[in-house]
């Protein structure tokens, strides 16, 4: 397997102008944010959000970013105009029997461990985002396919993870381990469309995203993932 893809860290290099760009529709356009604060953030960090989108699209192709899933959203459970840089992804996977045999909290803990820290690191590659007082925090929403269907229709399980900026900064700055970080974040669970409310999860170090390579996957010309 000669086409090794290392995804621990990512740099997308442009070779000339030929580049298979991911859909811009993954990003919530600045003018569709409902407050001036959010619109300002979306304009200020437009390049960083585009790079986040591009990196996931090309280097983590098993993650699906739905339309309007990257932006400075307001978590519904928070008051005022708290603006969190938010990212929603679906994980396309064939789950192992061990994974599907777990309770929801177990599956959610595994997904949290695997993706939340990595997504946060990608969302803050532009360090000024983490330092910006207008950025109140970060949201990572992760969905995955449930083993059972509902009326023959597939069902997603979802967790929405909210970290205020100080909590995120402690984790990203190495002052909090992932297990401590998980205890300080708010996590809401969903079974299909049904809200499960706040869930308490355990989290552990998981380097899957750093090490996993899709067999024979060849990034688009001009894209380098490392």
């Amino acid at each position: 397997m000669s086409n090794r893809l290392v995804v621990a860290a990512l740099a997308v290099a442009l070779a000339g102008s030929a580049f298979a760009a991911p859909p811009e529709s993954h990003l919530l356009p600045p003018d569709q944010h409902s407050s001036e604060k959010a619109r300002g953030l979306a304009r200020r960090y437009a390049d960083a959000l585009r790079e986040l989108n591009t990196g996931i699209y090309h280097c983590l192709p098993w993650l699906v970013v739905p339309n309007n899933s990257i932006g400075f959203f307001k978590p519904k459970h928070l008051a005022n105009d708290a603006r969190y840089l938010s990212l929603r992804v679906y994980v396309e996977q064939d789950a192992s029997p061990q994974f599907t045999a777990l309770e929801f909290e177990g599956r959610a803990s595994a997904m949290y461990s695997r993706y939340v820290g990595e997504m946060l690191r990608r969302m803050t590659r532009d360090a000024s985002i983490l330092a910006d007082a207008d950025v109140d925090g970060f949201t990572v929403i992760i969905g995955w396919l449930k083993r059972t269907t509902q009326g023959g229709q597939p069902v997603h399980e979802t967790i929405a993870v909210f970290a205020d900026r100080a909590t995120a900064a402690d984790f990203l700055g190495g002052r909090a381990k992932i297990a401590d970080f998980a205890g300080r974040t708010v996590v809401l669970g969903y079974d299909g469309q049904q809200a499960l409310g706040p869930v308490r999860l355990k989290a552990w170090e998981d380097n899957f995203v750093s090490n996993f390579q899709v067999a024979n996957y060849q990034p688009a010309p001009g894209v380098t993932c490392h």
Partner: protein
Amino acid sequence: MRGTTPRALLLGAALLGATGCATGEEWEVWKSNPAHFASGEHLKFSMKNREGKPAEVSRDDVEQARQQNWFGKAITVRQEEILEQ
């Protein structure tokens, strides 16, 4: 979740099956993650990598397979239930 495998990986595994040049390790991955061709289009995509050429999966191939919507539209929480624009 140790066996986590994206559909894209399955595509790659399917291609290996078509080319007949899979390593033992790759066959193990393929055997442990059985999948079906979703459509004739997917099969066509697999076939184009035959004739002894190294199998490659491009980002476009991944997207094409995804758009065939193997498992149908999923029931999931609306983003508006979690976030406000």
